[in-house]
């Protein structure tokens, strides 16, 4: 959703992200302007979640964006970097159970990727070690897919009715698909 100003575009963008995240939690992202036209949307602390059976988990969401002017004089927010982490603990001492990263300006691997960790009781410690070290290549991953993954496959309990969160995720993923300037491969 464009905004009349860069800041309004970022606020609108954050509104969509908060709506998507409302399928998991009532906590809301905060925003920080870290440069003239660079903003961070984040949870200041890891956010606790519960599964249907009450098991505790956490998410940490951080997204960097800026605003670009459109031809009609309004502004649109664009994602520059992201980190979506799902973990069994609130700390930052590992990549969590599932984490999607895209950090094109830092570190040795800059394409979008996925980190996965499984429990070490598989019986194949060498495989477990390889899995925990791997950066699985991905396309650009939208927040809606991350949230859907947690609801569908990790049994996270939504504070919203099933039909409500399905509707939100469908609507916002469609908006992402419509507005994203790239999804599969970063341009060379």
């Amino acid at each position, binding site marked *: 959703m464009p905004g009349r100003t860069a800041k309004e575009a970022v606020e609108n963008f954050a509104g969509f992200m908060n709506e998507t995240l409302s399928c998991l939690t009532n906590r809301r*992202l905060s925003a920080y302007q870290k440069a003239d036209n*660079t903003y961070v949307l984040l949870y200041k602390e890891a956010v606790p979640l519960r599964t249907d059976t009450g098991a505790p988990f956490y998410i940490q969401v951080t997204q960097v964006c800026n605003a670009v002017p459109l031809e009609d004089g309004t502004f649109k927010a664009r994602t520059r970097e992201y*980190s979506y982490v799902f973990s069994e603990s609130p700390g930052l001492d590992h990549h969590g159970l599932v984490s999607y990263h895209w950090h094109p300006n830092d*570190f040795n691997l800059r394409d979008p990727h996925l980190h996965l960790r499984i429990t070490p009781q598989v019986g194949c410690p060498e495989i477990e070690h390889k899995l925990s070290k791997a950066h699985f290549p991905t396309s650009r991953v939208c927040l809606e897919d991350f949230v859907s993954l947690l609801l569908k496959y990790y049994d996270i309990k939504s504070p919203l009715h099933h039909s409500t969160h399905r509707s939100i995720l469908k609507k916002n993923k469609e908006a992402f698909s419509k507005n994203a300037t790239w999804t599969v491969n970063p*341009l060379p």
Partner: protein
Amino acid sequence: MPATKKKIQWITQGEMESLVDKRARAVLKVSGKTFIRNRKRGDYVKLDADKCPGIVELALLSPGDKVATSRARKNS
């Protein structure tokens, strides 16, 4: 009220400095100021983030508008 209409909470510079300092101490065992200085110097450019979990999330909070490569600028 739809989520998209709710006001977002903006973090002050002081709050962010405090957050970066807290995370830098947890992840790298250095102060936030030291982390930022090292990052500007390029100390972490080729770091294997696997050897330092949490540094990705820390780097995203760092001040500046770093879009360092032409590739990065195109990938919006």
